[in-house]
């Protein structure tokens, strides 16, 4: 049984100006200890997909269809109190902005004590503090910092604290939502190395959400490329790197600089992501796609199995598509 199994998940935002299908027909699974990367532009639905795993899609978002199974338990209709015991304990979430992710009026230690005692009410505050100090040491932060307030720490330290809070209860799955976007490149590397080291040491599964495909390629076993709420391509990272199939994935890969190709010209994908209140008919990507065909403007492509566990949503690889080629 996989640790996480998502089956034909749909998430809608019911805004007053219309309904946005933020996640459509998403299916994938994740085993214990595996790492999955979710790549996509802003607004592609990657955070919504991540938050729906702990059922915290912000208002007015609702899960309208599908299943999210954690260890076989479908959480979509789980009562709120059982959901609360899953959050933080089984599945932990690291948010994007470390500067505002800690309560400004509480010391670092108090964050750990509260988290630990929420899920293990029998633990004494002193024991919880002791555990917190051990975690800080693993994070490369002086244990004395436990008495500091969040404003006394730098952004990188705060993000390390957030990661420490995420692993404090030894969860099965950590979802890191753009954990390094707000940090500079050097700190970024350190944080990602730290996450990887801790993940291996604790044997956790990781979902890394990022707009930066290069980070994900480097660090994940499997990759999902999201565009306008749909899974465009889903493959293991070696396969995706070697044989990117969707024109969008190819565009993303061509926009990553490569140090060995010094005369390489970086290309950008023309245009901008669609207005999700009124997405284009047919394939969501056709207005920006250089391979767009007649059928792309009319019919929505399905996610098809290209090879063993390499899925792509494009007519170029479809029987119908080949005919009209």
């Amino acid at each position, binding site marked *: 049984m996989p640790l996480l199994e998502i089956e034909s998940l749909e998430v809608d935002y019911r805004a007053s100006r219309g309904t946005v299908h933020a996640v459509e027909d998403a299916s994938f699974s994740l085993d214990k200890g595996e790492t999955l990367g979710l790549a996509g532009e802003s607004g592609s639905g990657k955070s919504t997909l991540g938050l729906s795993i702990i059922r915290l899609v912000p208002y007015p978002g609702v899960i309208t269809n599908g299943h999210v199974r954690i260890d076989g338990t479908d959480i979509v209709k789980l009562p709120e109190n059982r959901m609360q015991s899953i959050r933080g304990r089984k599945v932990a979430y690291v948010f994007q902005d470390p500067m505002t992710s800690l*309560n400004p*009026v509480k010391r670092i230690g108090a964050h750990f004590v509260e988290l630990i005692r929420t899920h293990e009410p029998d633990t004494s505050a002193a024991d919880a503090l002791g555990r917190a100090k051990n975690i800080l040491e693993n994070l490369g932060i002086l244990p004395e910092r436990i008495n500091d307030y969040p404003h006394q720490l730098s952004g990188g330290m705060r993000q390390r604290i957030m990661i420490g809070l995420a692993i404090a209860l030894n969860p099965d799955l950590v979802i890191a939502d753009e954990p390094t976007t707000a940090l500079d490149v050097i700190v970024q590397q350190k944080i990602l190395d730290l996450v990887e080291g801790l993940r291996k040491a604790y044997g956790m599964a990781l979902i890394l959400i990022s707009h930066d495909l290069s980070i994900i390629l480097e660090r994940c076993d499997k990759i999902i490329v999201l565009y306008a709420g749909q899974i465009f391509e889903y493959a293991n990272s070696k396969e995706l790197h070697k044989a990117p199939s969707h024109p969008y994935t190819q565009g993303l890969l061509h926009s990553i600089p490569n140090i060995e190709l010094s005369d390489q010209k970086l290309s950008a994908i023309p245009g901008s992501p669609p207005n999700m209140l009124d997405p284009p008919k047919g394939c969501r990507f056709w207005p920006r796609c250089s391979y767009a065909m007649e059928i792309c403007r009319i019919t929505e492509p399905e996610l098809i199995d290209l090879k063993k566990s390499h899925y792509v949503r494009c007519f170029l690889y479809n029987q119908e598509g080949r005919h009209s080629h």
Partner: protein
Amino acid sequence: MRKTKTKLRSILSSLIPGLSSLARRGPSGWMVLVGIAIVSSIVIMTAIAPWISPHSPIASRVGPIRASPSLQFPLGTNHLGQDMFSRILWGGSLMLQVSALSVLICFLVGVPIGLLASYTGGMVDSTTSLVIDAVYAFPGLVIAIAIAAMLGPGVVNMALSIAVVYIPSYFRIVRSQVLSIKELTYVEAARAAGAKWHTILFRYILPNVIPSIVVVVTINFADAVLTAAGLTFIGLGVAKNIPDWGWDLTDGRQYLGSGAWWIITFPGIMIVLLALGFTLIGEGLSELLNPKLQR
């Protein structure tokens, strides 16, 4: 017992260096200091009045009727021959009690309602806001007079009628703060870590709302003092034989024409001073606690 004592000492010792550091915070720090000085000297004066006042504040004919200020009666006497100086010393007690009690009621009612309604959101929030806004739309003194007239005289009744007027300002401040704080990442992070709603409300949102509430409390004190003075002035306060600045204002008004200015001037100054003290603290604190206003 010893524990509370050491706790008290640590609070005091953290307060006093706090006071001196206020002076280093520029003009707004000085405003707070001056305000604290005014308010605390009035409180102390009222508290020790029984030992320092030369005469009983309610005994009549302790001196000549409507005598102007002199060495024997520094602030003169009124038409009953009562010593105005003693009445000034005693007269703040009622006003301080009423304003403290009304602020307490406002706090205990306005803050929880504001927290719960705005955290719940949706229909609960909009209905509560509508009711509160309806109260807010009335001129304050008019409602206070209406309620005080209904309830009758007495410290608690006065405090209640003043509280009704100022609960909306607590509610509105708390609501606006909660609405912005509950969207912040640390609240969402707490939720993602499995925190229950009461933990989020009382450990994450409330402590971050407190600074704004402190400012409302001090400004509310000033308003309560003025409203209490207004109520006693129109005779909706308490029984006559309790010394009160507001009552002295009403009482002395009719003798102003005959030249007895001292009967209303000194109580009036005291009311203004007390309100000014609270306002200075409030305005100063709001500038100190809200760095966006400084610049």
